């Protein structure tokens, strides 16, 4: 590597740091789905179908989570990002 490349490569955020950022999001997402009950993927799919009867959304605009707040209280959290009006 030439010295010139050396200085150049330090400037903009590297592609590796981009990869790391993306992976941290992906892995956090995969892990949160892992701890959910078995019926979850299907339930999520059906929720998306219902919403899709009214507005077109894609799967990644919906997040469904269970938060175990304490021993006898779990919260089902449904987040839908609506598309922008065109």
């Amino acid at each position, binding site marked *: 590597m030439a010295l010139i*490349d050396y200085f150049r490569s330090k400037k903009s955020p590297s592609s*590796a*740091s981009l990869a790391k950022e993306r*992976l941290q999001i992906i892995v956090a997402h*995969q*892990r949160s789905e*892992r701890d959910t009950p078995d019926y979850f993927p299907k339930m999520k799919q059906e929720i998306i179908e219902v919403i899709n009867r009214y507005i077109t959304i894609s799967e990644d605009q919906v997040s469904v989570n269970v938060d175990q707040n304490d021993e006898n209280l779990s919260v089902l959290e449904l987040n839908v990002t609506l598309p922008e009006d065109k």
Partner: protein
Amino acid sequence: MAQIIVVTSGKGGVGKTTSSAAIATGLALEGHKTVVIDFDIGLRNLDLIMGCERRVVYDFVNVINGEANLNQALIKDKRSNNLFILPASQTRDKDALTKEGVGKVLEDLSKDFEYIICDSPAGIEQGAMMSLYYADIAIITTNPEVSSVRDSDRILGMLQSKSRRAEQNLEPIQEYLLLTRYSPKRVTTGEMLSVEDVEEILAIELVGVIPESQAVLKASNSGTPVILDNESDAGKAYSDTVERLLGNNVPLRFLEEEKKGLLKRIFGS
């Protein structure tokens, strides 16, 4: 009782078979009676990497189906008395591996061997699931690259929910990260995830880092596991990995790019 070690990854082509062959050979060299099993039914290639392809008569599926017994199917390694290979079948489909059949073979092998290394196929289908189901230890073979890391995390999910240990609420499988095809130079230039990055993302214990190395192709060309090339960086890195699996604390090597002379750095190479 044998320790059952699965070498797994999700993604294909990351170095599972290379690592299975190296680690099995390394354990045998250290005096441990070891068998390495090819779970890649229909696409066997562990026999090639071990250099015993011309001695395959019966295979894993023959044994499961009762068409041959273990002694007929096991191939003794020509370099070590402690090492045996159980090849995959070339023709069947992967559903030939049933939970009961695999369980019975592993149980029988457990009586004779200290270590059973399971070389997993890619993917998350039957063959891959069977190779990890009975594991005590998992070596998550990962390349420093997004799709490999994501697949490794998915496999971690399987180990934690679909394995025998998970189903029977036993102590969980010990999970180790083996980072392969690592290029220190590309890490320095910011093109490749570093060891620390991958460790941080997957959050499992690191057992070894194998550099990208020309010795690996050379080893596979000649059918000699790369760990036997003890002059090579990859060979040494696999030896270190085996030491760590055996509980010995050895420092990581080959994480820095080789130093170049100043002139080369200024004028490029």
